[in-house]
């Protein structure tokens, strides 16, 4: 709970409790430049300590925040990601996560509740039945992974901006933070949350979202890299404070817009 001082605006820390441990400053998560070993020609030129020491890591993170700023300015809220014909869908669609496929969390659909919190008017949790009753749209778009590969898929669900309006979210807030059943978390900028193609997804390829693709709900945004599209979402908070995310805390660029 030490971190709750950063969560003003009446955010229920319990919602994000699974995340709290992860968000605590932890020295062990600031070592992504370790194990670089020999760096080849560059190491010979400039000396290893300049390249992979803590000071270079700090400097690189500063540049990464600068890149967040640049990307936020490059982001055009009216620009749509390309849509593809059904014939372009990648089959089989690749599974990718930080756990193995059989370790994907089993979410009990009868007990499932989407908890909504933060700068919103209506905090009533949502059952799956209530979510499924929302108007839905379908998109066939390209998911681009930070690893480099990409795949075209078909996703069906409710535009997140409609849902945010429905719960009376403060649309001038800076961030929307998502918490997942198994502890994953991610946060995004409000302009992306309000983008027409940012979707609370319930179906993949016309079928109820399978476990491996994030049952019962994932957030799909074709304007951001794949890791920014959380699966098994159980909590959503509208915030003004930066909360990072699972991979972002480990060094991935936060904005990661496309």
């Amino acid at each position, binding site marked *: 709970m030490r971190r709750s001082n950063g969560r003003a605006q009446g955010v229920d820390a319990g919602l994000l409790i699974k995340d709290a441990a992860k968000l605590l400053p932890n020295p062990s998560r600031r070592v992504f430049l370790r194990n670089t070993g020999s760096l080849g020609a560059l190491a010979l030129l400039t000396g290893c300590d300049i390249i992979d020491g803590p000071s270079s890591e700090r400097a690189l993170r500063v540049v990464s925040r600068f890149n967040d700023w640049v990307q936020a300015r490059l982001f055009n809220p009216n620009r749509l990601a390309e849509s593809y014909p059904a014939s372009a869908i990648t089959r089989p669609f690749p599974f990718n996560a930080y756990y193995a496929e059989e370790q994907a969390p089993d979410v009990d659909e009868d007990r499932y509740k989407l908890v909504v919190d933060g700068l919103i008017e209506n905090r009533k949790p949502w059952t799956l039945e209530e979510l499924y009753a929302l108007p839905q749209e379908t998109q066939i778009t390209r998911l681009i992974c930070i690893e480099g590969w*990409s795949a075209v898929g078909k996703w069906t669900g409710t535009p997140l901006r409609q849902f945010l309006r429905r719960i009376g979210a403060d649309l001038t807030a800076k961030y929307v933070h998502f918490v997942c059943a198994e502890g994953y978390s991610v946060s995004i900028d409000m302009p992306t949350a309000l983008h027409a193609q940012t979707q609370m997804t319930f179906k993949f390829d016309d079928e109820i979202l399978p476990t491996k693709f994030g049952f019962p709900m994932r957030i799909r945004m074709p304007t951001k890299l794949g890791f920014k599209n959380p699966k098994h979402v159980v909590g959503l908070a509208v915030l003004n404070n930066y909360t990072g995310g699972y991979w972002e805390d480990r060094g991935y660029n936060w904005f990661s817009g496309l």
Partner: protein
Amino acid sequence: MERAASMSGTDTRPPQRAVHPLYVRITHWINALAVLVMIGSGWQIYNASPLFPFAFPKSVTLGGWLAGGLLWHFAAMWLLLGNGLLYVTLGLVTGHFRRKLLSIRPADVAGDFGAALTGRLSHQDLTRYNAVQKVLYLGILLTGAVIVASGFAMWKPVQLRELAALFGGYEGARLVHFFAMVAIVLFLVVHVVMAFLVPKTLRAMITGR
């Protein structure tokens, strides 16, 4: 005259103006650093999801793992871009490109290429590039433009959709980016080998003479 004589006892030619102006030397070495970081970190990123059935040895990659490689890549890109824009702007404004690179005659290319292959190409006057050098330096400038453009297309395939479309979309830009890297690495091998075969060119890029 004195300076030329003092630097090389056998060089009795009259004094010349600098082989490379100061801005060329500075941007050259900044570019060298930026390109090495881009290649090392780019190989790290490649290894996360190889396009082809091989990976780069970990010992020649930068960043430790994907996140580190990406942080280096997206930091060094600003250095590469800013330095490159400065170099190109000054090269155009000062007439450097026109004088040194664009004065290519096709007949010279064939002749100098033959001379280069048989080891008879002259490197007496470093202020003037031979036709093979002109072709290679123009080629590497164009390759630089292609790798930067395809890189931006991969980075922002939605916001820069038209640019990405030029390369056949995201996956096309990925391929172009890779093969532009291959071209740059091949150029670098030849470039560095030549610099050591004709060491005074290396000296000229440091001291200007």
